[in-house]
């Protein structure tokens, strides 16, 4: 197990390295014009100076070496030149990350607290009123564009519940609407899949045996079916995890939340190479950790899945 984990981590680092190299090289293929907002008015001399400042005139391999040297030896992510003028990237990201992470984590927690019981009850009362109600909710959430119900929640939430419209880190009440909006999609998602897996499981032979044994319906649902249905749910963990840091561009702009929402797109548009690399590094790391956690959870839940056995090694 430990040996497997070690291997997994080493491989993850290699993956990160490759991702960073690819992104590093790709952003350097973008046209030079993009780096200078006032490109039209610049003289040949100014351009040359600017490119030299950014180190773009050096051979690719030297640039790459410099980047990794700074990153690994000094933990230096570089300096933003365009998104913000001459501010270290770390300084820009530092206050944003915790906000998005907290918001996302709260939302995941809330969606699990609501979505999982909802899915369980839907499976338990399959074909009855509660199931239809839940299905209606899921279809509504999946079919209506998120932006629409985000707006509705903001409008009525602020008007009827008198919750402040703008987000303030220190005001817990102002967290309610964004977290709720962020959770709706996940609630529907968790409930839908859990219901589906639980219905699948409850048609299996071992459930019949449990019934023959004399176990009651509640016991069968919670002690037998739930855990077995939860195993395939583990594969959704990495995505959920990733979403916590990426943030939601809609929600963050609706409530003026200073988080990470839409930041990557923004810096790509502005061709801020150092920012792009740093954010990609962050997202890739979180994604890989999410995958690892998902796999670990599967191993913990299902004795048939093993890391150490031959053939179990992925």
């Amino acid at each position, binding site marked *: 197990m430990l040996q497997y984990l070690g291997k997994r981590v080493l491989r993850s680092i290699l993956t990160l390295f490759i991702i960073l190299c690819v992104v590093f090289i790709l952003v350097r293929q973008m046209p030079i014009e993009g780096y200078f907002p006032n490109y039209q008015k610049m003289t040949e001399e100014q351009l040359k100076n600017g490119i030299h400042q950014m180190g773009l005139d050096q051979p690719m391999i030297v640039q790459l070496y410099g980047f990794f040297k700074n990153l690994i030896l000094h933990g230096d992510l570089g300096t933003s030149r365009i998104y913000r003028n001459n501010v270290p990237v770390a300084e820009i990201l530092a206050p944003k990350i915790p906000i998005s992470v907290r918001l996302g984590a709260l939302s995941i927690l809330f969606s699990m607290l609501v979505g999982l019981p909802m899915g369980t009850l839907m499976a338990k009362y399959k074909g009855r009123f509660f199931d239809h109600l839940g299905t209606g909710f899921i279809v509504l959430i999946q079919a209506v564009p998120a932006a629409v119900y985000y707006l509705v929640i903001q409008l009525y939430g602020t008007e009827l519940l008198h919750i402040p419209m703008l987000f303030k880190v220190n005001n817990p009440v102002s967290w309610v609407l964004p977290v709720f909006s962020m959770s709706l999609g996940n609630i529907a998602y968790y409930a839908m899949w859990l219901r589906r897996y639980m219905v699948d499981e409850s048609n299996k032979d*071992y459930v019949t045996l*449990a019934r*023959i*044994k*004399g*176990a*009651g319906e509640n016991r069968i649902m919670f002690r037998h079916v739930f855990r077995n249905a939860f195993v395939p749910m583990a594969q959704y963990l990495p995505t959920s995890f990733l979403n916590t840091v990426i943030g939601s561009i809609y929600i963050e702009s609706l409530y003026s939340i200073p988080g990470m929402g839409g930041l990557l797109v923004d810096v790509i548009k502005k061709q801020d190479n150092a920012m792009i690399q740093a954010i990609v590094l962050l997202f890739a790391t979180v994604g890989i950790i999410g995958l690892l956690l998902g796999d670990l959870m599967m191993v913990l839940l299902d004795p048939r899945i093993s890391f150490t056995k031959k053939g179990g090694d992925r």
Partner: protein
Amino acid sequence: MNRTILSVRGLHVCFFLRGRTLHALRGIDLDVYEGESLAIVGESGSGKSVLNKNFIGLLDQNGRITEGSIRYYGMYDKMKHNPAGGTDEEGRPYCDLAKIARREDWLRIRGSEICMIPQDPMTSLNPLKTIGWQISEALMLHHGMKGQMAKDETLHILEEVRIDHPEKRYHQYPHELSGGMRQRIVIAIAIACQPKILICDEPTTALDVTIQAQVLELLKELKSKYNLTIIFITHDLGVVASIADRVAVMYAGDIVEIGMAEEIFYEPRHPYTWALLSSLPQLGQRGEELYAIKGTPPNLFTEIQGDAFAARNPHALKIDHLEQPPYFDVSPTHRARTWLLDERAPKVEPPPALKKLRTLGGAVHD
């Protein structure tokens, strides 16, 4: 003869499928005696499993008992205040399983009174729970056992079903065991419930021949040890011969012949039983094709006129197509539902091949 423990009278079960009605059981009469082993044989779709599912209240959702009663005598007066409870003409308290409506009432019967070993041991165990947990669960549900006590009892039961290294198996998961072992675990779960009646739904179909024999031997042993009444559902006549005291032959949702195992094997009276026995591969002649019953069972969506087997029966009489035969008693323990036993019927000899069964006798009751 022992006392009756289960008494089925005029049982009709229908399934409702997209507005059509399938008449799966057409008036079953059956008595099961305490401590016996009864085999129910018949081809697929004859209603063997449906009949037994009624005993544990696990009929499929679209199925319903439309008529009849299933009196279970094992609970003494535990069901006195239940609408399904009652006392029969001899003053014996019973519980009518056909009348049980509430889930909670079934929980008092399933497992602890009547238990079943399902067909496929490979899929019948929960893959995510240890063997020990699954057996202890039964102990907890029916005897309130917990902790060390439950563990000790579980280990004891594992030894009882001849699982080696019980202490090790206790912590293992189903996927770590072989098919035969899993079948023993399923049996262990049934034993842990300590039922009075054990229904074995084709307990050996999924196993290879050597394991089959071991499992049957084990069941025989447990039967005498725990004074179990066992009902075997099977289409393997070899299993029947080696374990059953009595045999009921089912065809198209009805019991066409029932009697002691010897009577069914040596003196069968119903043409369907003849046909069934003739298809035993042991009776085949070298160089000749094995016997197979021609035709297919009747469609149970339509009302059956007369004897259900008439259309496939080479000895069918005119009346077979018109009216359903009643039961004719052959001996106090043996009766068959065929007009051939009527005194007005012509004399029809059973197929000569069946005589070989007598000479093969040893093979039947080995």
